[in-house]
């Protein structure tokens, strides 16, 4: 105990003294002698550029004899008609010079839009949103709201509010002291300045706050205005810019939402390239919408769109892994829809994030025309269904001899076990995990051919063979005519009979739709008006249908 006290005392002595600089040595010395070494300078001459001395001329105005010879500057009117975008108090003093004439008004975060070598992203040079709020700079002349997440008592902040209790330019900048650069009150390493007032949930453990990744010098430059070289050191400024942000909403660097992410997640800062996956033919189309996403949106009623931030929360995302069905750290802090259709804030299971758009609000045409059409995946995977791939809950079928180890009939799977990048870790590749993009239709990790007449091979149905043993299936260990249907005389794909997600209990039942049976009606047709499978027990059943000209009257097995 004594040692600890002694050590801490020693460390305090060794800590460097607080640095400060005189305004005379800074850029705010606007006298004709300029900044830098000078021999004789009257001290008051430096202050007058911002501090107007009282100087009544003594001569009254000639046209308005009623006007008293009073000063024009009123220091007490800092709350005159306080409206958004109206600077008051000390901010008014700063802005009277920092308007682009005597001093530049903004720090240029990026003079030109991010030019990706592949030309993938939108190149909008001008601001898209001419908000009357004028906010492409951090708002000033506003109260420090107690409702701000992580609100800290103003008295405990080490950044000052003005005498009226408002945030002003002077909350972050000390116009007299340029020791920290940009006249900041303290260095902004790891965004220490921003995090004084802003404390997003999960930030301290987030990847963007802790990652030591650096840039490998391949354009585009992710940090054009920063001298810091790691992600953690740049922290908030990886995505946000306090002055002259590219986007007036949330002060993001770029107006194009995904550009804020992809400028680093292209393999040149991040280890893996999401950009590469985004360029594949089947990908989540973040580039098609601009200005639609809003963090306060309700997934049930919002205009359909997808951006990176619909699945990832950049303030909370981290590298922790999880056990199925829980969402991994990459999806931390993101909203979702539960299996019951209720909002989950935040989502705890991975499928809840997917259900936001692919559940009750799914509106696309079904990819395959089936006997029982269903596009709502939340209904397809429901645990009360006659059959389903075990995303939410272990499956109903206790007899699946084809399952490869480590999967068994009580296993669960992630959506991303099937829907992922073909170059991701699930397929033995070096790309990022997750359903960003794939060369295979339906954004599948492996090949899954759905066309009739496909010659069977280990690659044609590689997705199924990831978990289901091809040898077992072709050896007819469950359904005795698997080999016949898959083989050269028929060449039927798995998808002719099996519906990969599941069959909703609102449409099918255990007698007719177990084993994911839901016929592809473009290939299979009714026999004499009946198209049906009937489950007669373990490894027993019958089909009434017509296919490839062969009528199943029904055909009964075993």
């Amino acid at each position, binding site marked *: 105990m004594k040692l600890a006290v002694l050590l801490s005392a020693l460390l305090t002595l060794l800590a460097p003294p607080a640095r400060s600089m005189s305004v005379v040595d800074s850029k705010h010395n*606007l*006298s*004709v002698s*300029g900044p830098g070494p000078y021999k004789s300078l009257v001290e008051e001459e430096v202050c*007058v*550029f911002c501090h*107007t*001395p*009282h*100087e*009544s*001329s003594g*001569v*009254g*105005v*000639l*046209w*308005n*004899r*009623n*006007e008293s*010879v*009073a*000063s*024009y*500057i*009123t220091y007490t*009117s800092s709350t*005159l*008609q306080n*409206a958004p*975008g*109206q*600077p008051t108090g000390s901010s*008014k*003093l700063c*802005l*009277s*010079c920092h*308007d*682009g*004439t*005597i001093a*530049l*008004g*903004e720090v*240029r975060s990026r*003079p030109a839009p991010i030019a990706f070598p592949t030309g993938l992203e939108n*190149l*909008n*040079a*001008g*601001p898209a949103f*001419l908000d*009357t709020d*004028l906010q492409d700079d951090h708002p000033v002349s506003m109260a420090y709201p107690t409702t701000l997440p992580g609100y800290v008592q103003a008295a405990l902040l080490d950044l000052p509010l003005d005498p009226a209790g408002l945030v002003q330019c002077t909350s972050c900048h000390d116009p007299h002291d340029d020791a920290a650069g940009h006249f900041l009150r303290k260095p902004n390493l790891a965004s220490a300045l921003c995090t004084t007032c802003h404390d997003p949930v999960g930030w301290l453990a987030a990847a963007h706050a802790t990652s030591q990744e650096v840039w490998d010098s391949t354009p585009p430059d992710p940090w054009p205005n920063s001298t810091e070289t790691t992600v953690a050191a740049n922290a908030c400024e990886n995505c946000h810019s306090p002055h002259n942000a590219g986007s007036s909403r949330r002060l993001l660097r770029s107006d194009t939402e995904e550009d804020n992410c992809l400028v680093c997640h292209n393999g040149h800062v991040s280890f893996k390239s999401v950009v590469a996956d985004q360029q594949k033919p089947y990908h989540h189309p973040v580039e098609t919408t601009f200005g639609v996403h809003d963090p306060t949106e309700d997934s049930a009623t919002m205009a359909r769109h997808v951006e990176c931030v619909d699945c990832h929360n950049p303030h909370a995302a981290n590298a922790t892994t999880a056990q199925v069905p829980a969402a991994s750290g990459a999806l931390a802090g993101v909203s979702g829809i539960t299996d019951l259709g209720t909002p989950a804030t935040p989502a705890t299971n991975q499928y809840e994030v997917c259900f936001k758009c692919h559940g009750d609000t799914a509106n696309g045409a079904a990819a395959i025309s089936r006997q029982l059409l269903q596009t709502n995946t939340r209904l397809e995977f429901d645990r009360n269904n006659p059959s389903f791939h075990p995303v939410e809950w272990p499956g109903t079928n206790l007899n699946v001899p084809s399952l490869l180890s480590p999967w068994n009939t009580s296993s669960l799977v992630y959506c991303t076990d099937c829907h992922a990048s073909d170059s991701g870790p699930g397929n033995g590749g070096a790309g990022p995990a997750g359903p960003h993009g794939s060369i295979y239709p339906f954004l599948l990790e492996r090949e899954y051919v759905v066309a009739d007449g496909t010659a069977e091979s280990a690659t044609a149905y590689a997705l199924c063979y990831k978990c289901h043993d091809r040898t077992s299936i072709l050896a007819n260990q469950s359904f005795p005519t698997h080999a016949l249907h898959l083989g050269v005389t028929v060449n039927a794909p798995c998808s002719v009979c099996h519906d990969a997600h599941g069959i909703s209990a609102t449409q099918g039942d255990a007698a007719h739709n177990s084993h994911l049976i839901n016929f592809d009606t473009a290939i299979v047709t009714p026999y004499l008006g009946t198209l049906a499978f009937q489950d007669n027990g373990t490894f027993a059943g019958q089909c009434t249908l017509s296919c490839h000209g062969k009528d199943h009257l029904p055909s009964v097995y075993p």
Partner: protein
Amino acid sequence: MGWAPVAALLFSVACATVPPPAPETVNWPPLPQPARVQRVGEIRHEVDLGIQRGWWGRVVDTVLGHRQESLLTRPMGIECLEDGRLLVTDPGARRVLLLDPLHHRIQRIPSDDHLSLPSPIDAALDGHGHLLVSDSVLGQVLRFDLKGRSLGELGSGGLLDRPTGIAVDTERDRIYVADTTRHQVVVFGPDGQVVRVIGGRGAKAGEFNFPTHLALDRHGNLYVTDAMNFRIQILDPAGRSLAVIGRLGDGPGTFSKPKGVAVDSLDHLLVVDALFDNVQVLARTGAPLLAFAHSGSDAASLWLPSGIAIDAHDRVYVADTYNHRIQIYQLLPEAQP
């Protein structure tokens, strides 16, 4: 049967155009003194230029309700052209607007939506029908035609460091550009060649410390806002100092943050002060005559104003920057009761 109310709605929308409310007038000095300056209006929305939305637009407005969008985000520089047209630079919207109240038109410059100017400070029309726009971040004066198409630059190649104010003398075919960080005014001839460089950094007459805005009177004399010397300097067409007006202070006849300067038909100087939020009217000798406007957002107020321009009829336009509008005043002839 169901058509009648719909038709009535459409009819009423189409034929009944609700005029904007009459602008509030304010006089200076206040009664019982005779008025010398009167605030007569403002330009904030398209409707202030007499631009009405089309028929369908008005139907939509009636049905859905319409929030008037501001025409100006952060207007800075103003220049008066013939026929009541106004040239307004707007660094907040990164563009320049050519406003034509007479013909109810607005021209965006640059006209190409994909281009934007990072910091357009001032604009002027040269003698050849081209628009000149100074951009303090690009460090150039850009030329555009009246349709907003880009025509190149003036003074490229390091001739200008931070161009801000522009004034054009059409009689002598001279373009004056204030170069703030070089503390000088560069004078260009008709071919874009440098004719003269006026000033240099200093505190004596003819020297500047961060000059910003420029104006010309009918004799070709140049008025320079010598911002960090807190004075206005008057120079003749040859660049020789004629007068130095004002000093630092917070009372009449002194300046704190002088911005735009303009000259009226009687050779009075009008100087905008961004910290006083007013316009001071001074005699040519520097004697203070009147100050009008004060801090605020109403008809009688300004908020961090910058540019000022006066047309041939002594109508004064002030860029009321942080109120997102242009304030319009009328200078009144002597002894107006």
